[in-house]
């Protein structure tokens, strides 16, 4: 049938390459939570905690998306922002005005955000909101690693929406949504601060308030399945191609640089930890779980700088971060307050220390010739191009380092205080944050009536065979 008008598949502002890459990136990042962190954490906890850990991961992912649709996205990235104070002040762009993403325009209109007013986005808000959601979702899932093995399930269902609303959305707006630290010049390429440093702090503070796992569990805390750790870690590594590769928001040169740099820093981080184990650990042996820790250090540390450092910078980021975290893991963990807090899976080290190191390294290693957004022409460098300059490349100026330091101080203090407040509120509302000791002794079976590896031989159906 001949139509009087010609149909077009997308509006004029949409770029198919950008939109496709952004949706693929978002999906890759989503895979880092489910299944990657579900099976990575499930593999690291004791056998009796696998189901509980996995369900907390999947329910946090779901809860965050509902919060995101109702108010979270617009709090973090909504545009224009709420004017809580005079323009340019800390309060001016603290958060966006909370409202839903339920009307058609909120999905199909061109994305617009305080995060990037330099060049119009070439994809719709649905793409941007989903991309930003998967980052929000992974943050509580990361700090869950410090809390597993004693946290009350119902408490978790309340912690996640409160933390997304009062911690994540605020940090994201301040650093990414065009808020105070973004205006001041602190940068976080894809979440070394907003996600990893914040997750490390929340894990530590949360674990401190929650109290330790049972003594019996701590003395027998062997991982349930190293092969599942390998599956999770592998998806985590390659999922990070979306985590960092998606953050220029255009499928261009800097997306490619960010992907390559991410992998280079990760390889360097993994090898550094492995060699540290072989040279300096008590047993002088390479360990798989050590190598995976190093891998995560590389991934986390390159996150704040992925598209702003050159290849040498990426190697150094992986090497330095992995070394610092290895030392922290081995020695600082014996000192107060670290020795007194049962951060079950060590999130404060592999995400907190690594995120902080990576964020500060931006101020040293960012190469201003690594262009995120250019000026027209084949090489597209030139006055006005957007890049970041660290101490080594900008005439030994400490300016960027100082901005990075201030933003880190904010993330640590704000996240620490707000996480504590949220945990105490939840403790009050839920009458305690911990499952009872007799429940903790049993684990999955007591909380969910399920176990990770049921034995068919001993299980006999009680109710009739129809549903």
């Amino acid at each position, binding site marked *: 049938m001949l139509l009087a008008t010609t149909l077009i598949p997308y509006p004029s502002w949409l770029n198919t390459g950008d939109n496709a890459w952004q949706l693929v990136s978002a999906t890759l990042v989503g895979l880092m939570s489910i299944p990657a962190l579900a099976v990575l954490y499930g593999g*690291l906890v004791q056998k009796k905690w696998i189901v509980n850990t996995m369900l907390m991961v999947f329910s946090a992912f779901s809860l965050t998306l509902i919060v995101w649709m109702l108010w979270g996205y617009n709090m973090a990235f909504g545009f224009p922002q709420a004017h809580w104070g005079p323009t340019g002040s800390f309060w001016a762009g603290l958060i966006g005005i909370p409202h839903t993403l339920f009307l058609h325009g909120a999905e199909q209109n061109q994305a617009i955000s305080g995060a990037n007013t330099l060049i119009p986005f070439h994809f719709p808000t649905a793409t941007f909101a989903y991309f930003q959601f998967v980052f929000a979702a992974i943050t509580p899932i990361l700090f869950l690693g410090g809390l597993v093995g004693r946290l009350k399930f119902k408490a978790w269902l309340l912690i996640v929406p409160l933390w997304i609303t009062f911690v994540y959305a605020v940090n994201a707006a301040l650093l990414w949504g065009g808020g105070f630290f973004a205006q001041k010049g602190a940068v976080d390429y894809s979440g070394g601060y907003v996600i990893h440093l914040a997750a490390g702090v929340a894990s530590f503070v949360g674990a401190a308030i929650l109290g330790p796992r049972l003594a019996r569990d701590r003395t*027998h*805390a*062997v*991982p349930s399945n190293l092969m599942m750790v390998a599956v999770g870690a592998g998806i985590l590594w390659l999922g990070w191609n979306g985590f960092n590769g998606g953050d220029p928001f255009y499928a261009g040169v800097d997306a490619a640089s960010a992907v390559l740099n991410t992998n280079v820093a990760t390889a360097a981080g993994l090898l550094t930890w492995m060699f540290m184990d072989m040279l300096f*650990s*008590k*047993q002088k*042996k390479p*360990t798989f*779980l*050590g190598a995976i*820790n190093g891998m995560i250090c590389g991934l986390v540390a390159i996150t704040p700088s992925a598209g702003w450092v050159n290849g040498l910078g990426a190697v150094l980021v992986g090497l330095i971060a992995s070394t610092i975290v290895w030392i922290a*893991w*081995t020695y600082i963990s014996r000192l107060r307050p670290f020795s007194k807090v049962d951060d079950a899976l*060590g999130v404060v080290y592999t995400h907190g220390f690594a995120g902080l190191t990576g964020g500060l390294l931006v101020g040293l290693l960012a190469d201003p010739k690594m262009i995120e957004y250019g000026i027209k022409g084949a090489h597209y460098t030139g006055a006005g191009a957007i890049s970041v300059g660290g101490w080594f490349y900008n005439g030994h100026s400490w300016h960027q380092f100082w901005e990075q330091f201030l933003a880190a101080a904010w993330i640590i203090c704000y996240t620490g205080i707000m996480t504590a407040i949220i945990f105490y509120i939840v403790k009050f509302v839920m009458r305690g944050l911990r499952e009872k000791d007799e429940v903790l002794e049993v684990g999955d079976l007591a909380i969910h009536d399920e176990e990770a590896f049921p034995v068919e031989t001993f299980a006999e159906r009680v109710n009739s065979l129809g549903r």
Partner: protein
Amino acid sequence: MKLIVAIVKPFKLDDVKDRLKTLGVNGMTVSEAQGFGRQRGHTEVYRGAEYEVDFVPKLRLKYSSTTAK
């Protein structure tokens, strides 16, 4: 007729089984077991934490024999 129970190291199973066959034993049950004796346990290290593992894997053989050995 005697019921004989033997605990052996896992990699010794083939030798024991073959030898018993030649001696006329025509059936046995094997189960996995953990045990310790003079042979010492070992240490496992996960994420920097050392765990002492006293028990080592063993196989428990059960067979019946009509002749006293």
